[in-house]
């Protein structure tokens, strides 16, 4: 009988731990969000107070590793993650981000880096786009408005980085966060939906060697600003004067 008067410790433990876990689960995302990058409230317009950018440390980027490419495919639903572009040949399939292997002709120095839309301050794609479908957001992210893209591909001719792809066939299985459409042009969006939610782009998150740094280039206290101020970095084809938002170390 006395045993029966004893409180059920295991049930009490379960309830306590369960309540703690539930509280944690409901509060944590908010706390984590708050801690990661300042999320922009959905009812506020994008401002030019920030300029999103990336810094790729090619010394950390491992040859043969394509975790960033795989993560981008998964996040945005292209490549084998789409299952849609079954008719297009290899040259016709979309490629939002690619790994480029480099070997210096004279010195033989070899390294590799991820290549995607460089989110230029002065994007040639947006300059040549007849309808204004290619545009740059106030925060520096270069995007394509799929509703007014007429599929003329002039932006692809103008892009110095081969960063854009044309959708060559009907697509059905699309991610809600990354709409794509036959006959329109697409490219890396810097995971704009994630950035707006205060998260980092998928490629940045996925890199096993943390070779890609993401942040606000206009915030002098951001890690990316401090790093580019301290260490030498460069843009690809800096001679074009486009001031890309993506910069590289070690090239």
């Amino acid at each position, binding site marked *: 009988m006395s045993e029966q008067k004893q409180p059920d410790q295991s049930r009490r433990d379960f309830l306590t731990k369960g309540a703690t876990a539930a509280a944690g689960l409901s509060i944590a995302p908010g706390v984590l969000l708050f801690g990661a990058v300042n999320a922009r409230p959905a009812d506020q317009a994008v401002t030019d107070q920030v300029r999103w950018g990336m810094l790729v440390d090619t010394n950390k980027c491992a040859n043969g590793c394509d975790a960033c490419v795989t993560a981008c495919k998964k996040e945005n639903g292209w490549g084998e993650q789409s299952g849609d572009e079954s008719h297009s040949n290899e*040259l016709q399939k979309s490629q939002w981000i*690619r*790994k*480029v292997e480099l070997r*210096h002709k004279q010195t033989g120095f070899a390294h590799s880096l991820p290549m995607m839309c460089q989110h230029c301050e002065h994007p040639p794609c947006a300059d040549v786009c*007849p309808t*204004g479908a290619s545009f740059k957001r106030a925060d520096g992210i270069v995007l394509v408005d799929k509703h007014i893209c007429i599929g003329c591909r002039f932006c692809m001719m*103008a892009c110095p980085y081969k960063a854009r792809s044309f959708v060559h066939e009907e697509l059905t299985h699309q991610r809600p966060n990354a709409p794509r459409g*036959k006959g329109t042009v697409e490219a890396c969006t810097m995971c704009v939906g994630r950035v707006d939610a205060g998260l980092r782009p998928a490629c940045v998150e996925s890199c096993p060697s943390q070779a890609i740094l993401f942040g606000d280039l206009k915030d002098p206290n951001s890690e990316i600003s401090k790093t580019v101020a301290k260490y030498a970095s460069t843009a690809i084809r800096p001679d074009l004067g486009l001031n890309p938002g993506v910069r590289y170390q070690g*090239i």
Partner: protein
Amino acid sequence: MASVAAKKVQFLETGLSSGFWLLLGGLGLLVLFGLGAHYQMEHHGHWISGMNNQIVWGTPHVFAIFLIVAASGALNVASISSVFDKKVYKPLAPLSGLLAIALLLGGLSVLVLDLGRPERLTVAMTHYNFKSIFAWNMILYNGFLAIVAVYLWTMMERKMNGYSKPVGFAAFIWRLMLTTGTGSIFGFLVARQAYDAALLAPMFVVMSFSFGLAVFMLVLMAAFRWTGRPLGDVMVKRLKNLLGVFVAGVLYFVLVYHLTNLYATEHHGVEAFVLRDGGVYTQIFWFGQILLGSLLPLALLYHPATGSKRGAIVAAALLVILGGFAQLYVLLIGGQAYPLVLFPGYEVSSGFSEGVVNSYSPSLPEVVLGISGIAIAGIMVTIAVKVLRFLPVSLADEVVDPHYAPKA
């Protein structure tokens, strides 16, 4: 039925013959095939074409740009009569204006039908990015159509004849702007080795002189032959001499373009590609553009043995057109086939055709769509000369030669 438009040159509609219906039927069939090709590409998507993410502009663009460039050039004959006051060309002016409109609409049709989303043409008309040379071109194309239509009106309506000169002058200025715009589509592309040259704009202007006149001469000779109207040697000789000058002009620009590139070490790669190592592009350049498209027509036009023969002149005009297609193929597709240089001094590779010559082979739908642009222009001309008085009744020597003028 006939009216007197020039001092003594009469203009008359072409008649209804079985040849007219045959021509119309043949061209109509080509247009239908073109629409079919367009439907296939739109329904399935561009994967059925030879184009890809490296060669984004293919054969349809070669046809479209040829037609657009030739359109502004076709207007030259009218300009020579109005702006430069060469009366001998006056009887040719209405056909010149008509051909300019027809070729431009043919070229634009191909361009529009190849868009990824052609049904959004209204979007292109309502959303303008004024920094885009493409958007400028849309204004230039529409303005050209409007000005040339008014120009034709001033030429063909006697009451309006007095305005023909100022309107002709405006049309001439506008056509120079239009071809400058077409050349700048490529000239403004800063990143590609084969483009990014201010020279491309004037080069396109001279190309338009040459291609446009070649097309004009063929249409003129065919129309006069098929409708049994006399076309004297005086007119043909003038036109063929002019064509020779224009062909030489294009050759000069091509020479300067390549010499400039050859002087700059950074362009040695793309020059070696076009002139020596580019495989099909090198062959098309040397055999198509230079030998068949430039040197052979020059020889045919100026050699005493062939220069006065109609057959040789027709062959020369055809070769100039062939050379024009070759030139645009090498520039457009060859220019895209040569890889973008992102990392000078490095060997590069990736899963996205990095650092390799991009491959492209024209597909049937693309070629059929391109040809339909020519057919659209052909139908417009065939019908227009049937219903309106575009063609002079005679261009025999005694009609056109000012020195032949009998005392009234």
